[in-house]
């Protein structure tokens, strides 16, 4: 068996590490205060002082991209965490025990997925209000059904494996079988869908901030910056491009990881 290099995974990891590095840097230090306005230097094109230029309030776009990407990244991770943990628990129990509760929860999941997610997010936001942390809750809840359905399917598949029968035969109780023997074996599949989920969360945050119900001004987020930039798209294209490219790079990195993990799994099985 010859080991092929998994370029997707390597490239994705490198890109994501670079992005995370920049984000961490943005938390500790930015060249300018991202919220400091300077009317004297509005809409300047990129230069050595302002690497990515300035926006309509004279704020340094590079600093804002760093912090905005940080906010977006945090939201993405938190959303995936909420959706993933709840999804694993719900999907795990549904897949293992089945029965009417399984039917009920899975049909509810069907109903939730039937609506466009941005619409449902709007409904939740209108109930609990806008803001960075509320958006995490709204999106997190929306992500639960897809994860729980995935985990449920995987659990149902693993459940019929002989090593599970064997563990039961050894006298292992249900919870031990589920958490020690079954759920770890669903992680390869779960991992790549967590990465895809992260990407969807980033996009959802961007669109919700774009609509003005996500991260509130003056705090930067990539989606907000994109929506503010569209007015100046022709006079200051670097504004929209910086925010847009940051989103693309963030998603591309994680997307490549997801792809690399998926590819590795397929090869392992073959």
């Amino acid at each position, binding site marked *: 068996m010859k080991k092929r290099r998994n370029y997707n995974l390597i490239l994705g990891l490198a890109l994501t590490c670079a992005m995370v590095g920049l984000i961490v840097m943005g938390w500790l230090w930015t060249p300018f205060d991202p919220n400091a306005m300077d009317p004297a230097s509005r809409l300047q094109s990129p230069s050595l002082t302002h690497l990515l230029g300035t926006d309509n309030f004279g704020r340094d776009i590079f600093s804002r991209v760093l912090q905005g990407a940080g906010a977006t990244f945090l939201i993405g991770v938190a959303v995936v965490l909420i959706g993933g943990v709840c999804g694993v628990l719900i999907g795990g129990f549904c897949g293992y025990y089945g029965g009417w509760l399984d039917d009920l929860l899975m049909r509810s999941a069907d109903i939730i997925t039937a609506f466009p997610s941005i619409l449902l997010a709007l409904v939740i936001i209108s109930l609990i209000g806008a803001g960075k942390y509320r958006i995490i809750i709204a999106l997190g809840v929306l992500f639960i059904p897809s994860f729980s359905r995935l985990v449920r399917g995987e659990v149902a598949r693993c459940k019929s494996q002989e*090593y599970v*029968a*064997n563990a039961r*035969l050894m*006298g292992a109780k249900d919870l031990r079988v589920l958490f020690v*023997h079954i759920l770890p074996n669903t992680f390869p599949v779960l991992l790549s869908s967590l990465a895809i989920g992260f990407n969807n969360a980033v996009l959802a945050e961007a669109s919700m901030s774009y609509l003005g119900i996500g991260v509130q001004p003056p705090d930067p987020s990539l989606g907000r910056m994109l929506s503010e930039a569209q007015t100046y798209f022709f006079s200051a294209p670097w504004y929209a491009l910086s925010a847009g490219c940051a989103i693309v790079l963030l998603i591309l990195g994680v997307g490549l990881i997801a792809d690399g993990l998926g590819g590795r799994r397929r090869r392992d099985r073959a």
Partner: protein
Amino acid sequence: MLEVKDLSITFLDDGAKAVDSISFSMAPGERLGLVGESGSGKTVTALAIAGLLDRGRVRTEGQILFQGLDILSCKESELLKIRGKDVGMVFQEPMTSLDPLMRVGPQIEESLRVHSKLTARQRKALALQVMQHVDLPDPETTYRKYPHQMSGGQRQRAMIAAAFISRPKLLICDEPTTALDVTVQAQILNLLLRINEQSDVGLLFISHDLSVVRRLCQRVAVMYKGRIVETGPAEQVFSDPQHEYTQRLVAAIPSRGKGRRQ
């Protein structure tokens, strides 16, 4: 020790009767072979005895008395008490019967974790001892290996170690050698024989391979289409088969030199 009385098993989803009122019994330390073709109900019978049948999916009739406990009608909590402790099982496919994400050592200890109050160190010592007993090479290293790092024969040895570590009264072997090549097959059979002779564990050996059963078992029950058609001492069944199906089976055993002349 084990007594199966008029056992019938019907699958609820398609109404198929997998096992049709079979009866047999086993004495402590006995080696009983259950032979028959695929689909004759051998494996379902084994799962029923191990208490692993999904009670929502099958209907059972009759009784399986294991040390006086009726496995078919007792509570799940009572089953948990005997599973792994008094009944062990070795599955056909050593590739899939070990958890791929768990090291082999802890898997061998699994039943001790549930049934004994031994400390982690005592469990490991016992596991290493059993691994030695089943001829796993270099137990200390093997203990830390993952299933995919081991050969099929080694995995089957690990399975036997896991099934045997709690010193069960009954070891159910469901085609334990089918997936292995012939030399490894012989080694595993010798191992099972040795374990049986050194302790009082009874072997319920399920196979479609008559020559293997003939070598290993004292008594044989032949299953055909969910029924036991013939039962008796191994030598007698094989040398003087009564039922027509058994006769055909025995005639199908390849033997040296006979094939060419015909």
